[in-house]
């Protein structure tokens, strides 16, 4: 079934009464997700956003709580503020990225209320990719430029209209509010089929990477891989699946706030202990951690590789350290017999 963009726009604008809508817009810095009030602001023709939409679920700087000392009492205030949100125009790689973040913030013992309050109040409207960037390699990661996994509603852009697929119960509720869904024409069906068959041209081989990495903790490969890396966090901060954070206090006299901020494994301070000891005191160990976490530990803990092939880290890296080459390097590395 499809809906004309005009009709869709009307429903979209109507949704702004109940939801905060986040969608891709063209800004000074390319395409990025921001709050929009009107469908006309939405950028239609985009590859993917410069930064991933993860910050709307897991903000880079978040107040967890604030406190105040009054006499002998400490008054604690929860700072969590959440409203109903629609994330519109999410690419399949990023929608999958959110499913991976879900696994991080929920485990047998603990569910992160900050993340899940937002997550549970969020509807994801995914849109298939009609154009595929040369840095995209989602097809190799078991996702495709048209996969609806992770979206509540999934759209395929047909120019003047969208093909609509309601994926989850949440999505069905919203889809019900879309009026005038009509059948696709034969030509449009052919267009949908072409988009559905498209794959990324850039490919990596991750068939055996998890088990291979399991043998590579002590491997000379790490020495050479990391050499040109300047240890910034441009790769982690632009990654839809990276999720490490730090918690610190901002205190002034009798008042304070506890804030959570993103952190990243490429920084030497990431693992620096209060004692002064740093278990990952060499950059080799930090790049090993980046590869191991994404392609081995995460798989062991959560059953999935923590990379969705969006290619953002490749574009952001100031020294062109390309994760696809890093993966190839692991595949080619000689096995160490211990």
């Amino acid at each position, binding site marked *: 079934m499809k809906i004309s963009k005009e009709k869709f726009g009307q429903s979209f604008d109507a949704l702004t009464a109940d939801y905060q809508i986040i969608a891709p817009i063209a800004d*000074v*810095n390319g395409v990025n997700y921001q709050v929009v009030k009107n469908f006309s602001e939405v950028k239609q023709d985009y*590859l993917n956003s*410069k*930064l991933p939409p993860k910050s709307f679920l897991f903000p*880079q*700087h*978040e107040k967890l709580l604030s406190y105040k000392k009054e006499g002998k009492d400490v008054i604690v205030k929860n700072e969590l503020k959440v409203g109903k949100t629609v994330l519109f125009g999410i690419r399949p790689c990023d929608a999958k990225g959110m499913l991976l973040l879900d696994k991080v913030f929920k485990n047998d013992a603990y569910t992160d209320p900050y993340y899940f309050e937002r997550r549970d109040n969020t509807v994801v409207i995914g849109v298939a990719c009609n*154009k595929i*960037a*040369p*840095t995209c390699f989602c097809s190799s990661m078991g996702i495709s430029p048209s996969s609806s996994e992770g979206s509540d509603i999934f759209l395929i852009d047909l120019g003047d209209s969208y093909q609509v697929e309601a994926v989850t119960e949440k999505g069905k509720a919203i889809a019900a509010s879309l009026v005038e869904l009509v059948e696709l024409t034969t030509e449009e069906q052919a267009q949908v089929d072409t988009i559905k068959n498209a794959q990324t041209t850039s490919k990596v081989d991750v068939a055996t990477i998890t088990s291979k990495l399991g043998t590579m903790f002590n491997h000379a490969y790490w020495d*050479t891989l990391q*050499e*040109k890396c*300047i*240890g*910034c*966090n*441009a790769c*982690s*901060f*632009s990654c839809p699946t990276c999720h490490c954070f*730090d918690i*610190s206090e*901002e205190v002034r006299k009798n008042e304070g706030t506890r*804030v959570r*901020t*993103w*952190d*990243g494994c490429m*920084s030497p*301070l990431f693992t620096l202990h209060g004692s002064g000891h740093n278990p990952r005191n060499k950059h080799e160990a930090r790049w090993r951690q980046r590869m191991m976490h994404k392609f081995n530990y995460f798989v062991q803990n959560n059953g999935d590789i923590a990379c969705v092939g969006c290619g953002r880290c*490749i*574009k*952001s890296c*100031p*020294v*062109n*350290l*390309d994760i*696809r*080459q890093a993966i190839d390097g692991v595949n080619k590395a000689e096995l160490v017999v211990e």
Partner: protein
Amino acid sequence: MNSIISDIRETARQLLADGKVDVVIGYEKGSLPLKATPCFVRSPQDADKLIWDETCENNLAAFATKTAGKKAIVAKGCDSRALVVLMQENQLVKDDLYVIGVSCQGVIDKKKIEAETGEILEAIIAEGKLSVKGIACDKEFNFIDVKDATCQTCRYPNPVIEDIHIGGSVEVPQQTVAFADVIEMENRTDSERQAYFQEQMKKCIRCYACRNACPMCYCSECFVDCNSPKWLTGGVDRAENLLFQAGRVLHLAGRCVDCGACSRACPQGVDIRALNRKLTKDVSEMYHHEAGISEEVKPALNVYSADDPEAFLVKE
């Protein structure tokens, strides 16, 4: 292959074969179009990886302090100035360093191209022109129009120190007005400037690529990472971002060699250079000092003079 590239390779090969250096730090072809990537050559056979063109945008001096052993470095004008400052600040020992000097025509600002063509699929550089195939459209550019902002005002395209020089030299362009860009910024009203820098700081994601790409940022603990006292949380708000950049720019006063590596490294297109250039102009006016142009000239912040106008510096 042009003769500069073959001369760089030959030099590297010889240095390694003769055991004069342990490693040659240069550039090789990157995985993306119009992108070179730093490389570390340790055997004579590997010297054939080395390249040289308008995509060699990183400042390799940033690797000099991190790489162990005797090293040769392929250096543009600005890279060589950075090496001078590093030696003056006792971060590098001259005996451990071999400078392969190459005069520089300027490097490409990819962001300018991508703003028009979208993501670059393919690109060919020939005779001052770039043919770019982009995901949005194809376009031809004159190199001069897509040259990095830094390179457009560069007055030291020829290395200031070198052990060998490769290729010809580049004529230094005459400037009609020095620091025209800074003067333009100074002439704006306070609120215009504030609006401009707020807009810039809003984009910053505190990845610290700017700091880490900078050869002059080598402190083992940066004030922004310091835990006790804790200056900043590391989160992104405009005040914290500005404090980070303001702190960085002050720490670079009289030391920044205006290589532009920080701005090019920034994934968010933050105009970091505007701040650095203002400080460079101030230092040049107040101290008549330019960083790293000669080994003999003492850095502005390292000299003491008895007739200093600030009396407290002389006697309290």
